[in-house]
């Protein structure tokens, strides 16, 4: 394999890893806990910006154009961890305001409204993160190595992060916590009647999802060497939504498969297809957005559970002593539930 081809393949693999991480975090919020956070990309942006300003140095003296907060020059992985921590904090704050009492559709609306406003605030109106230009020169681990090696190092980092995220999330989704989150998604009122403090559960999912968003954002910023307001437009969030809907919401493996489809097939390979006559290459991103959107709609219509549907929870079958059914047990007093109560 020639070197440019190899590097291209590595690039695709890195993008699949980082996008998978982001989509897994979105899946936790959206599919497990039922929080329709269409502004998830904002949490990715928090991680990216904060990782960026932790990693780079302050603007050079005499540069009157560049302005951003931070500039700590922290080495890897501290910059990334800082980004994650900030994303968790931001998600907690946002969740405390929005998750407490809002109905799910109000919540979605409020979050998208906040995303659009944040875009204007951070991207154009203020210079907290250097306005529309954003943060540049974010170093990546192994960035000073020759191209092929540095790409391989970053792929290694991305794969490790993906494996960690995947394991972490699988433990949550298979635990009683994951079960309660699904119960809240299905019927919040009924879950509350069983004594579940639904707000706290949703907040947990929101914050954990936020941290994972932050991780993916930090990796994005490192890999691209920077982050600006065009990196977190709502359409950037669409690819994550598409990954989850297409791959299979509520199933971590499905989300990764979905990301392979969206990033590998649609985002990358579509670039090799011949364009219809009279259309220029510059509209390719727009065509991809339209394709992703159309796929989401088609899947919602025909196969809302996605390629790999959510799995049923598996329990071991416990063989009990034969207990007569209730009708026969009247008066016998051999009630199993009361015998085995645990409190």
């Amino acid at each position, binding site marked *: 394999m020639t070197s440019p081809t190899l590097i291209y393949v590595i690039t695709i693999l890195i993008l699949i890893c980082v996008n998978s991480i982001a989509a897994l975090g979105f899946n936790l919020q959206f599919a497990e806990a039922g929080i329709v956070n269409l502004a998830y990309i904002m949490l990715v942006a928090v991680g990216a910006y904060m990782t960026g300003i932790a990693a780079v140095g302050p603007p050079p003296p005499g540069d009157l154009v560049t302005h951003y907060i931070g500039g700590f020059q922290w080495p890897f992985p501290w910059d990334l961890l800082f980004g994650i921590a900030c994303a968790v904090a931001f998600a907690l704050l946002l969740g405390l305001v929005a998750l407490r009492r809002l109905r799910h*559709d109000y919540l979605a609306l409020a979050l998208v409204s906040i995303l659009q406003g944040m875009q204007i605030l951070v991207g154009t*109106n*203020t210079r907290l993160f250097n306005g529309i230009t954003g943060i540049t020169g974010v170093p990546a681990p192994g960035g000073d190595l020759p191209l092929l090696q540095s790409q391989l190092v970053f792929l290694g980092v991305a794969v490790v992060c993906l494996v960690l995220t995947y394991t972490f999330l699988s433990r949550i989704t298979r635990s009683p916590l994951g079960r309660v989150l699904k119960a809240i998604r299905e019927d919040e009122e009924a879950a509350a009647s069983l004594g579940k403090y639904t707000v706290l559960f949703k907040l947990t999912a929101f914050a954990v999802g936020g941290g994972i968003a932050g991780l993916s954002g930090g990796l994005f910023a490192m890999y691209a060497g920077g982050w600006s307001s065009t990196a977190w437009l709502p359409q950037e969030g669409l690819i994550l939504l598409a990954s989850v809907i297409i791959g299979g919401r509520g199933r971590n493996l499905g989300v990764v498969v979905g990301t392979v489809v969206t990033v590998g097939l649609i985002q990358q390979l579509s670039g090799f297809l011949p364009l219809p006559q009279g259309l220029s290459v510059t*509209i390719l991103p*727009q065509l991809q957005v339209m394709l992703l959107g159309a796929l989401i709609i088609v899947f*919602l*219509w025909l196969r809302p559970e996605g390629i790999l549907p959510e799995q049923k929870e598996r329990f071991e079958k416990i063989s009990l002593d034969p207990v007569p059914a209730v009708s026969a047990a009247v008066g016998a007093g051999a009630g199993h539930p009361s015998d085995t109560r645990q409190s």
Partner: protein
Amino acid sequence: MLFTGHVTWDQFFLLLGTGIVDGAILAPACLGFSLQFGITNYVNFAYGEAMTFSAFMAWVFGVEKFHLGFVQYVLVAGLITALGSLLIGALIYTPFYNRRPQLLYLLVLTFATALILAALYVIIWGEAPHVLAYPDGASNTHYIGPFLVTNIELIFIAISVLILAGIYALLKYTTLGKIMRAMSDDRSLATVCGLPINLVSNATWFITGFLGGIAGVVLGLHSYGFDTTLGDGFVYLVFAAVIIGGIGRSLGAVVGALIIGLVFELSSLIVGSALTPVAVFAVLVLIMLFRPEGLLGSTGRSAFSRA
């Protein structure tokens, strides 16, 4: 003095006037969005795209091709947008709703639709700014009381008042309006009563599309040069206003629009014009914390009631 620093009463009244104008521009859009939600149960994230589309239609009919007069191109753009809204509503939204999907998929559907449309607009119209044709003397100014306003701003207010009055009359006095209100109050009851649900849903898509369309043209005129992101940059104010007023409430939408318009302009006196989104968020956050059903929202169960 009302404010510290160098703010004069002139500035204050200027911003107050601008805030009222902003509110007037927002109000039809908020009303349309709110009606859509109340009647069809769709939170329509593509509403900003309807506005963008209409502004471009106004450009096509007023500037690019047909050079229609002001009133004509406003109406034509509004009607074409209404037809587009009806088309998407009747072909995608209503049938999808009738398949009884999980409610959160409704949100995903309109979100995806919004991004598809936004991408399509970039393909068609590119990213360069476009400017609409203005009627003669549009920027002439008058003093009305303490307020300094331009002619075009007076036109915006007139359009807004006309539309609000029209919708009020529609909801209050026509059969269609009465069914719309019945569906908004209790969709399942309206279904059981044998009301023509689908027909009224589609009528709603048409009417609210018209509202969004007019709002889009006005917005395009107001921003003196716009591109395909016109609606996106504006629609978050619509969302915020509707939540503040009480989602699904017609009067609430109008009240929310005025509040947001005033907050948006007046807050620049205190926090500077760069941070006005922060002021809007602050109001939004206060509402979410203390009155999540909105100022005029129903006082029924808010936390758990199902759409």
